Structure formats: structure tokens, C-alpha cells
């Protein structure tokens, strides 16, 4: 796996330069780490594309509506981005900022899942109505 070696080397180089610059140039050391996070994110995204394509293929095969699976994908995306931002904020020492990002991501995830909740409620209402 060429990408695995690349990822590990990026992380190690960024960690070395980050700690080298941390004593004198803290903001630039943070940017080194931020760039490394971005570069590793790009490597991860390259592997994510076939995974998502397979999920879409499964969805098409099972005949599930895309309106039901779209919130799931969005929530996964929000989770990845907020986790990344939270980690960088924590690295820079601003834990409260990271926590706010995480909490807002959580609220946005709940918001994104509202169509699914409403669909379940509609189904329940219909089922209970039919039974009554």
C-alpha cells in the first residue's frame, strides 16, 4: 500500500516539524499540522470514493429511495468534518472552540435526520390509523 506509507510519512514529518516550530512559531507549527491533516484527508478521500459508489450501487439494487439514504451520507460527512476541525482546535489549545464545533455538528446532524424521523412518524401514524 503506497498510500499507507505516504500517509505515515506525512504524519511523521508534520509531527517533527510541528514540534520543532512549536516553541518559537506556534501558529506556523499549527498550520504545518493543519496541512498534514488536509493532505492525509485527501488520501483518505481517494479510498472513500469506491466505498460510496458501492453504497450507491447497493441502494439502487435494493430500491431504497435516495431521499432516505442522502441524510445518512450527509451526517457521515458532517461527522468527518467536525471531528477533523475539533481535533485541530484541540491541538491549538482551544478546546472550547472544538467543543462548539462538535456540538454544532451534532445539532446539524439531528437537523439532517429530521426527514427520516418525519418519515418514520408518518409511517407510524398510517399504521396506527389503519389498525384503528
Amino acid at each position: 500500500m503506497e498510500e499507507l506509507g505516504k500517509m505515515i510519512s506525512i504524519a511523521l514529518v508534520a509531527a517533527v516539524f510541528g514540534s520543532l516550530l512549536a516553541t518559537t512559531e506556534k501558529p506556523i507549527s499549527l498550520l504545518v499540522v493543519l496541512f498534514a491533516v488536509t493532505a492525509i484527508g485527501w488520501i483518505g478521500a481517494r479510498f472513500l470514493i469506491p466505498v460510496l459508489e458501492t453504497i450507491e450501487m447497493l441502494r439502487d439494487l435494493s430500491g431504497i429511495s435516495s431521499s432516505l439514504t442522502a441524510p445518512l451520507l450527509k451526517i457521515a460527512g458532517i461527522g468527518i468534518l467536525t471531528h477533523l476541525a475539533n481535533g485541530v482546535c484541540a491541538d491549538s489549545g482551544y478546546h472550547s472552540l472544538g467543543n462548539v464545533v462538535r456540538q454544532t455538528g451534532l445539532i446539524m446532524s439531528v437537523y439532517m435526520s429530521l426527514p427520516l424521523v418525519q418519515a418514520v412518524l408518518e409511517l407510524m401514524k398510517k399504521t396506527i390509523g389503519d389498525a384503528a
Partner: protein
Amino acid sequence: MEIDLIFKIAAVGIVVSILNQVLVRSGREEQATMTTLAALVVVLMLVVQKIADLFQLVEQLFKF
């Protein structure tokens, strides 16, 4: 994504760190601060574009 950008950023950081030390020792604290600030802006401009690209990619992948 160009990995050598890490080395570029680190080089900027090391150069600015040395410059900062020299300027502080010679009693030019304001110029040292300005040098650090300028380097920070330059590096930020390099990094922000890449972060925006990653965010755009994630947006495309997860169909935001």
C-alpha cells in the same frame, strides 16, 4: 496534493523563527512581530486553499 508544501511551510517557519530571534535581539520587536504576521498570512494563504479543496471534495462525496 503536493506533499512538498509541508517542507515549504516548515522552511518558512524556520526562516521566520531565525529572523524573529535576530530582530528581537537587535531591539526591533515591532518588525519581528510584523515579520511573523506576514509569514503567517503567506502560509495561511497556502493552506486555506487546500483546506477549501478538501471541504469541497467531502461536500461532493457526501452530496451536501
